């Protein structure tokens, strides 16, 4: 019979090995899934994990990699800080939308004026929008003790409806021949979040993501506040004893993750996406949850996980095009990855022993 024995300290080896094992296990299970769908499993895996990087036409895909990974990393960094403290913001998708709406609102209000101040103002507005949206669950949690999980999630649906309302109503392009959606910001130089190096996919949002990784690293491993966040997650009572105010921590963590998600949304609407439409959001806010866990809530891990997850998005598109693999297969694939990760995580805290008798 299998028997679990708690380790005296978390295993360093398994902390690093678990994500790798989980990715391999997901590849195996994914191969099974693809085979069940009647697609050649080896080819599908190659298309998802290899071709976008090193296959034919990889030039084009490599740029896409940064475009997709940028928002994922940016959002996941903020989420990871909260998750470390045991504060579950699962409404990043909503904060992403509201950040994009706020940023776009600034641009659309100022159109067609040109000024170098417009873009920074949009960044600020995006951050503020996401922050404000996240402060709703934060306020309700600290004031009334309402679950931040449920409130932040409900607000995603509210934000989605708000987005649709804006796309069909106030933000609709007056010169858009009746089509829903806002003006395209890519055609508005002062507001356009253009590629910094042509063809690289590198835009300001990617730079912000890298800064977020470094900032999160400094916060979590060097700063006293990061230390307190970790204590709050591991032992809430010990944190209070150490003088950490739970309410302040909730406001900080939700506010930070909201602002980062909002900024991500703003960079997206001003850059790769270009306009507010009712289908502007692409589930980055939810996928970032997987990225945060896959990266072990560690900023450098998130950097790697974000790139990997972006790869599955691009590879998924490619497999959709070439093999007719349904788009949803990639979503299931990503969910599976999180499952395997959580399941194998047991190995970091427990040792598995075989035992003859009952315990």
């Amino acid at each position, binding site marked *: 019979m299998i028997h679990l024995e708690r380790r*005296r*300290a*978390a295993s360093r080896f398994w902390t690093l090995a678990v994500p790798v094992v989980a990715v391999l296990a997901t590849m195996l299970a994914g191969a099974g899934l693809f085979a069940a769908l009647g697609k050649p499993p080896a080819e599908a895996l190659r298309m998802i994990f290899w071709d976008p990087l090193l296959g034919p036409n990889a030039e084009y895909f490599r740029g896409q990699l940064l475009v997709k990974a940028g928002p994922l990393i940016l959002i996941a960094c903020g989420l990871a800080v909260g998750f470390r403290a045991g504060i579950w913001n699962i409404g990043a998708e909503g904060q992403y939308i509201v950040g994009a709406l706020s940023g776009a609102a600034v641009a659309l209000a100022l159109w067609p004026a040109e000024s170098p101040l417009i873009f920074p103002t949009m960044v600020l507005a995006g951050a503020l929008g996401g922050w404000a949206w996240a402060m709703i669950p934060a306020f309700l949690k600290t004031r009334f003790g309402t679950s931040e999980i449920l409130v932040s999630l409900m607000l995603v649906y509210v934000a989605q409806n708000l987005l649709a309302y804006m796309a069909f109503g106030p933000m609709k392009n007056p010169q858009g021949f009746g089509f829903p959606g806002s003006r395209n910001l890519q055609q508005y130089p002062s507001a356009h979040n253009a590629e910094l190096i042509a063809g690289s996919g590198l835009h300001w949002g990617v730079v912000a993501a890298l800064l977020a990784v470094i900032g999160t690293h400094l916060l979590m491993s060097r700063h006293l506040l990061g230390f307190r966040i*970790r*204590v709050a997650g*591991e032992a809430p*009572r*010990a944190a209070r*004893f*150490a003088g950490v105010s739970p309410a302040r921590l909730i406001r900080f963590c939700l506010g930070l993750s909201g602002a980062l998600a909002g900024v991500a949304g703003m960079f997206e609407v001003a850059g790769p996406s270009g306009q507010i439409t009712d289908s502007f959001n692409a589930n980055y806010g939810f996928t970032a949850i997987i990225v945060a866990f896959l990266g072990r809530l560690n900023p450098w891990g998130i950097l790697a996980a974000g790139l990997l997850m972006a790869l599955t998005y691009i590879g998924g598109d490619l497999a959709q095009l070439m093999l007719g693999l349904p788009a949803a297969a990639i979503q299931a694939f990503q969910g599976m990855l999180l499952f395997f990760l959580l399941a194998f995580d047991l190995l970091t805290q427990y040792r598995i022993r075989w035992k003859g008798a009952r315990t």
Partner: protein
Amino acid sequence: MSRAVPPLLRLSGLSKSYPGVRANDDISFDIAPGEVHALLGENGAGKSTLVKMIYGLVAPDAGRMELSGAPFAPPEPRAARAAGVGMVFQHFSLFEALNVAENVALGMDDAPPMRQLARAIREVSETYGLPLDPNRTVGDLSAGERQRVEIIRCLLAGPRLLIMDEPTSVLTPQEVNILFKTLRQLSAEGTAILYISHKLEEIRSLCDTATILRGGKVVGTTDPRARTARELAEMMVGAELRSPARPATAPGPALLEARALSLAPGTAFGPALKGVGFTLHEGEVLGIGGVAGNGQEELLATLSGERPSGPGTLWLGGQDISGLGPNERRALGILGAPEERLGHAAAPDLSLTENALLTGTVRRPLVRRGFIDRRAARAFAEEVIRDFDVRTPGPEVAARALSGGNLQKFVIGREVLQAPRVLVVNQPTWGVDAAAAAAIRQALLDLTGQGAGVIVISQDLEELMEIADRFCALNDGRLSAPRPMAGLTLDEIGLMLGGAHGMHPPDAGPDTGRDTGPDAGPHGLGAASRGAR
């Protein structure tokens, strides 16, 4: 007890190992029907493991048990209960949100319908003098009443052997008397009792036989009435222990003062603090006794600043500090060490270095402009480890990897080395081996020698008698008026713990009235046991 009676339970060669520990090693002894048999030993001597094997919670690695001559190897508690073995746990296995009858029903294998069960509970509780209302929610009951739930749960099954694990640790001396009366009645009716304790006088007054465990082995089986408490203590500890040396200092001026301090309950079933008042002087140990769950945690939380009280209720040398948080109080020199080591005083999965950072950043230069100075933190942790003889491979080991005693030394050392003006500790030596306990008490006394004031909240009266200058009791969130420890009799303490408070104005002189006599009673913590420490 006559040896002619065949034993009810016979243990032969029972052994059980856990990784790194031999919890029980070749344990053998007998229990006769109707015998009150003590299992005596220090924390970690293997008492709990042994009774868990008898109750079917743990399977022995080797050895055998016989119940009334038949082989007995319960695979689970249900089987043990069916065979007539009942157990009252030290940490009650009760469900706070459920009522008494539901709790009792859960402990029975074929519970009758609720109405019938409620009647049976009333009957048993009257027969054995343990009043209990079956419809009350367990969360609202006192510790003594909760224990009654457990006992009645066992009694309804008509056990032949009743195991009691440290039953008196949560009771006032008066409640102990009631319990002992019940146990003697049961014994007279033929029920054997296996009584686990480390309290020597209790065992001498109640038990027919005592088996003494040390380091997982039986070191002797004896008639406790024929031995002095000192002899028993030496068998239990295996060495003679020094009493702490107390620096002779007269209490100085007032330091910390609580005035009519009240605090709402922190949890659904927790107690509130009601109008607590005391004055702590420089150079004194103020002992606060009381049965668990009467507001000890709340008192520590409000003194440490975790849960600040209303304005004007707490003063430090003329400054109102009631509204300050934990770190502002640390800056003023008020430090604390909560009861719960893992999860409150220390974070289990963080290293000792990080745990040193937990409370050390205010009074020690461990942080520069918000950024942690790892090297300084590590040096501070190493200092605590060295000065307080914490046994650990190093400061990077996780807190939960340390034994209870070593972690407690680390926690107390971390605060003591920050040179507090006021130190508040709750249960400083709970679950700690005797040598570490002595070291901790000594460190607390040394602090008072340097002019600090120390508040020791403890359920261990022996400990308070040993180190406190003045004593007050916490009962249902109310604090009695402090009285000088010297000259206080155990019955007086018992009355204070039982809630006979408010008879003296705050800080009145010694003994302004009640004199209930010097009799130490059966639960006694007489001179002999104190001398052995």
